[in-house]
Each structure stands twice: as C-alpha cells, then as structure tokens.
C-alpha cells in the first residue's frame, strides 16, 4: 500500500500526463524495494482497477517511487482525480530491465517520444547518478508541441550539464521555439550518433519506434545494439492470464524491454 506524496502535472489537456510520487506506507518495504530501470509495477486504484506502469524514477532514489501516467481510460482518469494523501496499491517490480551493468563503458543514446519518455527517465537518472560508468550520453526527445513535452524542469537541468547532450524537438513550429522542429526520427538523423561502442534505446508510440529503428539501422547500428520497450493490455502482470503475449513471449514477464533482433524474429501481433 502506498500513499501519494506529490503529484506533478507534466502537461494538461485531454491526454494530460501527471507524475505521481509514491511512498510505501510500510517503511521496511520502502527500504527493501529495489529494481533496475526498465521494470514496471502494477498500480491499483481500488474500486477502479490496476494498470501496468513503467517506473519513471531511478532506483538510486530510495525514498520514493514515481510513475508517470497519461489520462486515457477508466483507471488512469480516476488516478488523475487523486490528490496527495490518497492511498493506492502497488505490486512489483515486474518484467525484465535494461542491461545497465552490461552497458557500462558504452556510449548511450536514448530516443523518446511523448509519454514514452517515462521508462527512459528512470534510465537517464540512473545513468546520471552513476555518470562515470558510462561514456557519452545523448538524449533525443520530442513531442507534438511544447504543451505535450514532459519533465520540462528536469530537461532544463540536464541541458545545463556538460556531460549530457540534450536534443529536444516538437512536431510543429511554435513561437519561441528555437530548437529542432520535426518528428523525432528526423531529429535523430540530424544528431547523427555514431554506432561505435554504442547502445540505442527508444520508447514511444509504435509508429515512432518503427521509423527510429529504421533510421538507426541507416546510421549503421546493428540489431543487437537497439533496444525498445513495448506495451500491451495487461491484467495479471506475471505471465499467467495469457493476454499480453507476442508470439510465445509475454510482454509483462519476458519484456517490456526487448532488443531489436529479438523482435525481428518474433512472429506475433504487436
């Protein structure tokens, strides 16, 4: 059982996104709860249901747990009506994770779009907290408009750092925006990261992932250097209800992190 400590509204509007900072009611559980970026939890809003969210805070922050929620359906709309102090349920962590230990010493490039930035945020903050273990860090992030951009304050902090390269973009021209205008895959091409000793991770809407991977391959990345997270409708979160499978892999148990060469050979519907 967790209590909502703080709610940050990332952006408003119909598909508004809010980040919820949750703290376990039981201090021992809070201390024992550990995870690796990429893993997810099932958050219960009793009376409405449960949803599978990627943890968007880094495991280096031990006092709390954050999830970023887009208002879309029954449970998420009810969550958006919550206030600090409300009690929710959390179970997890579930799923596999980004190979943060295997990626030490490599150049990292993270490409996110819209709410897809949530699992990447966990990864970014983890890497920043362990900055010396990794080489170059490039973040490419874009949204439909400045109103849809998430984690704005964190990005402005990241932009100030010398050891992180941030490349933001919005889809359509807007007054006051002097950075890249266009879709994220195009922004990626203009950044032109080198595939040498590099790992690319991308999260976002399926259509964006498709084109980003295309462009990464064009830039010379090989299939096992590209990782992404997938999502599906989920109910149990532990690979038993049979709902979230792509082929013989369950997104809740064998994912949500997949490498591109895994996905290429998987026969199934996404």
């Amino acid at each position: 059982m967790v209590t909502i400590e703080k709610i940050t509204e990332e952006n408003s509007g119909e598909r508004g996104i809010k980040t919820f900072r949750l703290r376990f009611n039981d201090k021992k559980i809070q201390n024992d709860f550990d995870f690796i970026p990429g893993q997810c939890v099932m958050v219960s809003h009793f009376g409405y249901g449960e949803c599978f969210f990627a943890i968007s805070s880094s495991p280096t922050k031990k006092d709390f747990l954050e999830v970023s929620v887009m208002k879309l359906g029954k449970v998420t709309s009810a969550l958006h009506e919550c206030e600090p102090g409300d009690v929710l349920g959390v179970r997890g962590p579930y799923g596999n994770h980004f190979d943060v230990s295997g990626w030490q010493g490599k150049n990292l490039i993270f490409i996110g779009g819209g709410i897809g930035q949530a699992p990447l945020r966990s990864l970014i903050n983890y890497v920043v907290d362990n900055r010396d273990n990794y080489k170059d860090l490039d973040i490419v992030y874009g949204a439909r408009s400045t109103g849809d951009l998430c984690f704005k304050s964190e990005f402005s902090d990241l932009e100030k750092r010398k050891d992180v390269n941030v490349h933001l973009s919005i889809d359509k021209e807007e007054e006051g925006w002097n950075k890249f205008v266009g879709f994220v895959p195009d922004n990626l091409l203009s950044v032109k990261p080198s595939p040498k000793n590099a790992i690319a991770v991308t999260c976002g809407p399926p259509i964006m992932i498709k084109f980003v991977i295309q462009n990464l391959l064009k830039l010379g990345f090989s299939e096992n250097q590209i990782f992404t997270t997938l999502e599906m409708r989920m109910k149990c979160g532990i690979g038993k209800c049979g709902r979230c499978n792509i082929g013989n892999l369950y997104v809740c148990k064998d994912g949500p992190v997949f490498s591109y060469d895994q996905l290429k050979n998987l026969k199934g519907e996404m």
Partner: protein
Amino acid sequence: MEDLILPKNKLSDYINKIKSDYTIFAPIKKDELTYYSQIENPSDISLDFINSKYPPKSILFNQTETLFKFKHGLKAEISFKEFKNSKNVIFGIRPCDAKSFFIVDKLFKDDYVDPYYSSKRENTVLIGLSCNLPGKNCFCTSMDGGPANAEDVDILFTDIGDKFYIEIKNIKGENLIKIGENLFNKPKDQDKNKLKQIKKKAEETISRKMNTTGIVDELDNIFDNRFWKDISMKCIGCGICTYGCPTCHCFDILDETSLREGARVRVWDTCMNPEYTIHASGHNPRPARMNRTRNRVYHKFNYYPKNYNVIACVGCGRCINECPVNIDIIDVITKAREVKT
C-alpha cells in the same frame, strides 16, 4: 500398492467413508447433461457418460474467484482470503481432463505460484475413470494420452462389468484407498484379462487422429500464410471452445464495487473476444477474427510448447463437439500441415 477390485454395489459405501474427511466432486446428470459437481449423496453420482459437458477445471480454477476484498477511499485497506486447506477428491475424472491439470500446472506454478490454484491442487486427490467407450471426436491417443492413461491420476478405476478394477499410482492414492480397506478384494486372473480387453477395445475405438510431429516448426513456417484468414472466416468469435477446453486458462481481473467496499475478482476470459487485447489508446493488436483464431491455435500448439515443452491440448474433443460452425481443430492442424509455402 497392488491392484484391487471394488464391486460396484460397494461404491456408495466407499464414497460415504471418504466423505467425512474430503469434499467430493463427481459427475452428476442434470437434464441429460453430465457435470462435475460437489455431491452430498453418493447416489447422485452418474457414471453413464462419455465425458462431461464442461471440464472439471472449474473445480480448481473457479470461473469467478474473489482475490481479495477492499474498502476504498482515504482509509483504503485490503483483506485477503484465508486459504482453507480443505481436502478434495475429484472422482470419475477422465484421463484427458487429468492430463489437463498436469499441463496447466506448468503455468500456474511457474515463477510466481498462483496460490488460489495451487492450494486447491495440492489438496486434491484425483480418482480417474477409464473410458470404456471414447467419444466420436476424442483423439487423446494423438496427444500423448489414452482412454486408460493413468499417468496424471492418483488412482484409476476401470469399469469391468459389475466391478471396478483399481490401479493405485502413488502414495496420495494409497492413503485414500486405505480409508476403505475392507471394501476391496484382490483381482483374479479373469479380472486382469477383462481389463486388458477393455483397454484395448477403447483404444481401437478412437478413430480420429491428429499428427503432431514437428508441429511447432511447421506452424513457425506458416504464420503469415493466407491459410489463417480462410480457416477463420466462419468463426463467429463466441468463445465456446475456450470455456469448454480443459487447458484454456486465460482470465480477466476486475474490481467490482458497491459504494465504499468491493472485491477484486478473477473471471474466465476468452481470447476470442475482440476487446481482449484492446489498448486504452484504441489500438488493438488482434483486430480481426483471423488474428485471434490464429493466436489461439498457436498458443496451444506453438507458444505453450516453446515455453513449457508440452502441447496444450489433451484431445478431449469438446471444442469440436461444441463449435456452432464446425471449426474442427484436427481439421485445422491437418490442413495447416498441407499448406504449401
């Protein structure tokens, strides 16, 4: 423990003896259909059936199962169910349905063990009943089973006329038999011969066969083939096959509330429902019946074997018997093998 004989007229006595310690589920006849149900009176048992309408999976994996109750709002709290370790006996289960428990165990006990299922499964003794007369669409012999297959039961009864021939398979079965000790006799040679005859005849009666050698690879090759669109055009997406299948295990989890209180329940779900995989954004990875029918066949004959090394089909034939438009899994697999890439 050695084989035993139980005269048919002593069956009620035996059931009465074990009734005091065990909850007994047995086949009963209601409106000409046989169902597995909890019985109080051994005279309710009806063994005059080929196979029950619905499989006995509903005894261990309830159609509606309350996971926990909660009070919501600011003072939210949850109360879990206590797992009553009541001992159960499923009497008269057919070998195919018993095999289905073995298959589904692999999923429910894998990784996170499902306590709702396992607490019942561990405390259940299976008394199987061989099929003397298999049904017209039975094909258990093609699925690594048989009408008198005793691998997955604790005790196997075979009807050899006016008595039952009893084979005891393990210690669980032995303990259950010991309760009715003085009711049993030793089998004579003619009993043993009759048993052999009946088993042989039953196997020979099974006329439908499915070839499953290398089916996993065969299916891998034809995933994108047009064949799946053709075969699923007549599917109406009703879900009868999933509810009647002993190995289908898909479920849904929902909160059902009234004012301040509620419960989280797990209910059977069917992958044939179009809303099964729909995302909140509206995107549906399996939008057409073709995707769903193909997913169901692959789940049983390709994905499950890849994950757990066993085909998730026991050959009971219920899906063939019940399908309103005669989609026949034996026909589907046979035609799938003939598809030229």
